[in-house]
C-alpha cells in the first residue's frame, strides 16, 4: 500500500466528514476490527460514518481516485468475515443510512436504505398486515445491505427462498463511483437478472445504497409443532417423511442434544426433557388450509416415533419455541469459551449420513460439536466447541470445520448455504468449482472493479488472478495462513 495515497485520501475525507464521523484513533477503530467471525481482526486505517447516500458515493469516488480499498459494513454480524477490514484500507459504516424511503402497501413494496435493520422493515409493514419474509437469526440487528451482499437465508428458505428471492431493485455505487439502478419494482423483469447477480456478490461489485424489497401478506395462522426424539437420526428421518407427505412447511428445523442444552441454559425455552433431538415444523397460511394440513402433519409425526409432541397454543408459545432455536448460536457460548459456527449444505436425503459422519469426526478430533440446522434445506450449522486458551485448539477446530466442508462437497452439496464465502471459506471455493468456473467469476469481479478496491480479499483465495494479494511476512509455525500473509492479526 502506497502510504502517500492513503494519507491523501484521509486528507480528502477530512473535508468530507466532521471529526466525530471520521474515526482514526486506536480506541475508536477497535469495534470495527472484527465482525461475527471473531477469531479474525484487522485494524483499518480509518472508519467513516456517512449519513447520506451522497457521502457514500463521494467516499467511493475518493477511494477509487486514490486506489485505496474500502469495506462496507452494516452491523458486523457476518459469520464468514464479510466485513473484515482491509489493512490500510477504510471501512464505510452504513448504519446511519437506515431510512425507509418508501413503503407502498398497495404495490406491496418497500424502498429502504442499506443500513436499515432487517426486522425494522417488517415492523414498518406490520400495520398493513404485510411483512418482509427473509429472517436470518440475527434479524433484530443485521442490516438489509449486508443481507443483500451475502444473500442471507434464515429458517423459512425452503418455501420462501433466500434474500435474493425478495429483492426487486437496487441502487448501487460501483467501485469507480458510478451510480447504477438495477431491476425495478415489479416481480417480473426484462433482460438479464443483474439484481440476481449482484445479490450475494459479497461487496465485490460495490456498495448497495437503496434496496426495493417485496412484501408478502402476513400469514393469518401459524401452526408450530415441536417434536422430541430419542435419536438424532429419527428426527432426520421425520424430515424425509414430512417432505414425502406432500406438505410444504414454512420451516423444518432440527436441534441436537448439545444445542438444546445450550438453548436451555441461555433462554429457557423449556424443551422436552431428555431429547436427543427436537424437530420444529411450522405450517402457515389460511386457517382452513392450515387446519387440514395439520391433520396430515400430525399423522406423519405420530408415525415418525416422536416421544413427545407439543403444539404452540398462542403467539407467545410460538415465540418461545423459536427463541430457543434462534438464540442457539449465541447460547453455545454458555457451554464453551469459544466456538466456530459452520454452514454447509448436503442433499436432504443424506442428512442422517452426514450427521453420523460429523459425529465421528468430532470424536476423532476430541471436540464437541452441537448441531442446529435448517433440515428442510439440508443446511447444516455444526457449532464446533473449543477453548482458545488451549494451545492448538483453534487450529484443530478449524481443521475439523474444513473436514465438514469437504464432506458437504463430497456429498454433492455446498460449502455455504447462507453465510457466504468471504474470508472464512475462500480457500474452499476452488474445491467446489473448476478452475474455469472460478476464472469466469474472477474476471467478472475484475470487470466490475478493475482496481480491486471493493472488499478485496473476500470470496477468492489469496493469489487468485496472480494479483499478489499474498505477501508473506512471518514464518511462525503457529500462525494462521492469513496471519502469515500479514492480512490479519488475531487475539
Amino acid at each position, binding site marked *: 500500500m502506497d502510504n502517500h495515497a492513503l494519507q491523501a485520501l484521509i486528507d480528502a475525507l477530512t473535508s468530507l466528514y466532521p471529526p466525530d464521523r471520521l474515526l482514526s484513533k486506536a480506541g475508536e477503530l477497535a469495534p470495527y476490527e472484527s465482525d461475527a467471525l471473531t477469531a479474525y481482526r484487522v485494524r483499518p486505517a480509518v472508519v467513516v460514518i456517512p449519513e447520506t447516500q451522497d457521502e457514500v458515493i463521494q467516499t467511493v469516488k475518493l477511494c477509487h481516485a486514490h486506489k485505496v480499498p474500502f469495506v462496507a459494513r452494516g452491523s458486523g454480524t457476518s459469520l464468514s468475515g464479510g466485513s473484515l477490514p482491509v489493512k490500510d484500507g477504510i471501512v464505510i459504516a452504513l448504519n446511519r443510512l437506515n431510512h425507509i424511503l418508501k413503503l*407502498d402497501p*398497495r*404495490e*406491496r*413494496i418497500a424502498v429502504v436504505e442499506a443500513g436499515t435493520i432487517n426486522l425494522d422493515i417488517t415492523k414498518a409493514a406490520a400495520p*398493513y*398486515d404485510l411483512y418482509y419474509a427473509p429472517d436470518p437469526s440475527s434479524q433484530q440487528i443485521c442490516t438489509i445491505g449486508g443481507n443483500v451482499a*451475502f*444473500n442471507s*437465508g434464515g429458517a423459512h428458505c*425452503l418455501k420462501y*427462498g*433466500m434474500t435474493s*428471492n425478495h429483492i426487486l431493485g437496487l441502487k*448501487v455505487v460501483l467501485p469507480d463511483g*458510478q451510480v*447504477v*439502478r*438495477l*431491476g*425495478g419494482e*415489479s*416481480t*417480473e*423483469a*426484462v*433482460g*438479464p*437478472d443483474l*439484481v*440476481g*447477480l449482484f445479490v450475494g456478490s459479497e461487496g465485490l461489485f460495490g456498495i448497495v445504497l437503496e434496496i426495493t424489497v417485496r412484501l408478502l*401478506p402476513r400469514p393469518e395462522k401459524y401452526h408450530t409443532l415441536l417434536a422430541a426424539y430419542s435419536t438424532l437420526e429419527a428426527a432426520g428421518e421425520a424430515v424425509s417423511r414430512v417432505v*414425502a407427505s*406432500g406438505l*410444504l412447511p414454512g420451516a423444518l428445523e432440527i436441534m441436537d442434544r448439545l444445542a438444546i442444552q445450550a438453548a436451555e441454559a441461555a433462554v429457557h425455552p423449556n424443551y422436552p426433557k431428555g431429547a436427543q433431538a427436537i424437530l420444529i415444523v411450522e405450517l402457515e397460511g389460511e386457517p*382452513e*388450509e392450515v387446519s*387440514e394440513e395439520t391433520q396430515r402433519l400430525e399423522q406423519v409425526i405420530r408415525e415418525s416415533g416422536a416421544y413427545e409432541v407439543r403444539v404452540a397454543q398462542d403467539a407467545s408459545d410460538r415465540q418461545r419455541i423459536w427463541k430457543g432455536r434462534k438464540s442457539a448460536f449465541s447460547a453455545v457460548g454458555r457451554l464453551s469459551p469459544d466456538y466456530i459456527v459452520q454452514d454447509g*449444505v*448436503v*442433499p*436432504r436425503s443424506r442428512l442422517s449420513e452426514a450427521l453420523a459422519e460429523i459425529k465421528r469426526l468430532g470424536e476423532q478430533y476430541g471436540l464437541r460439536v452441537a448441531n442446529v440446522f*435448517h433440515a428442510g*434445506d439440508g443446511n447444516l450449522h455444526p457449532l464446533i466447541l473449543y477453548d482458545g486458551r488451549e494451545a492448538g485448539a483453534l487450529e484443530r477446530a478449524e481443521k475439523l470445520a474444513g473436514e465438514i466442508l469437504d464432506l458437504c462437497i463430497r456429498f454433492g*452439496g*455446498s460449502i455455504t448455504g447462507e453465510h*457466504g*464465502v468471504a474470508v472464512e*471459506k475462500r480457500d474452499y*471455493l476452488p474445491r*467446489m468449482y*473448476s478452475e*474455469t*468456473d472460478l476464472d*469466469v*467469476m474472477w474476471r*467478472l*469481479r475484475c470487470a466490475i472493479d478493475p482496481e480491486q478496491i471493493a472488499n478485496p480479499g473476500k*470470496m477468492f483465495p489469496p493469489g487468485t488472478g496472480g494479483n499478489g494479494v499474498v505477501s508473506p511476512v512471518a514464518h511462525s509455525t503457529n500462525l494462521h495462513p492469513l496471519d502469515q500473509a500479514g492480512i490479519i492479526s488475531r487475539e
Partner: protein
Amino acid sequence: MIHIESIEDVQRAMRACAHVLPRGGGSKPALSVPPPDVEELDLSNLKGVVEYNPGEYTFTARAGTRIDEVQALLAGHGQYLPFDPPLAEHGATLGGTLAAGLSGPGRYRYGGVRDFILGVRLVDGTGQLVRGGGKVVKNAAGFDIPKLMVGSLGRFGVLVELTFKVFPQADAFTTVRQPCAKLESAVAALERVYLARLDVDSLDLMPGEGGSATVWVRLAGMPGVLHARAERVRALLGGGDVLDGTDDFLAWREAREFTWVPPGWTLVKVPLTPGRIAGLEAILDPLQAQRRYSGGGNVAWVALPDTVPAQRLDGILLPAGLAGLILFGPAGKVRIGARENEVFERRVKAVFDPAGRLPDLA
C-alpha cells in the same frame, strides 16, 4: 442451422462460427429466428433429465429438454414446476424458458423462474464450459451465475444443462372468475385480493369489450376446504363464478399457452406493478391491442395486430418508463421501451463473450 447433439458440439460450433444464436423449441419465434450471417444452433436434441430425486425437490436436465416432458415426470411423483412455465404445449424447453425469463400465471404463489433456478452449465462466447450454482436447494457460494442467465437471451452463453428446485403439487384447484363492467372496479378487486391474507395460486385480469374486465383468482390446496376458501375470495370480489375441474384447467391453459392471442399478432411482455395497470391501459388505447395482466398485475402481456408495428409500442413504453420483450413477431430488436443504465450489463457481457459471437445486448 447446426443440430446440436452434445455439449462438445456447442463448444465446437462456438469456436467455429463468427456469430451464433441458440434455439430451443422455437415457441417464441421473435427470440429464435437468426438475422442474416448468424448461425442458428438447434438445441432441441440436447435433451433428457440427467438426475431427479423427488426427495430432494430438485432435478437436473439438458437445456433442450421439453418442459412438458419434465412436467409429466414430476407429476408422476406429485411434484411440479412452481413458476408455471408458459408455452409448454408449444414445445418450450427448459433452456429457452430460462433464457427468455418467462413464468406463467402460477408464478404468483411461490415465485418466477428466477426463484427456482439453482444451477447452470453453459458454453460461453469463447467455447468454454462454465458451471455456476449447485444442485442443492440452498447455496451461497460464489457469484449467482444461474440468476444472471435468467432473461439473458443467450447473450452471455449457450445454456446446456440446468438444475431447478421443484415443489409438491397441490391436491386440488379451483378458480373464481368475476366479470366487472368497468376496468376500475376490476383493478380494485384485484388489489383487494393482492393485499388479502390469502394464499392465492394465480391472480389475473383481462380487459374486455366496452371498458369491462374480468378477474381470475385460482386457489390450490386441500380439496376439503377449497370451496370454503373460494367463498372468501368471492366476498372480496363481490361475487364470481366458481370453476372446477376442466373449466379451471382450461381457464389457466388459455393464459399459459397464450391461446387468446390471435394468430399472426405480435406478443410483448411488459413488467409493471398493479398500481400502473390503469395508466398502461390509457396509453395503449390507440393501438387496438389485446391485453392480459398476470402475476397479480406484475406483468402485462400485450398483443398487437400485425397492422401495428412494434416500434409504436416502443415509443409508448419508453416515456412511461416501462420495458418490453417481444416474443411473437418479427425478429430484430426484441427489447423495447425503457432500459437500465447498461454500464454493468456491458461489463458482464465482455467477460462472457469478448469476441461478440453471441447476440449483442440490443
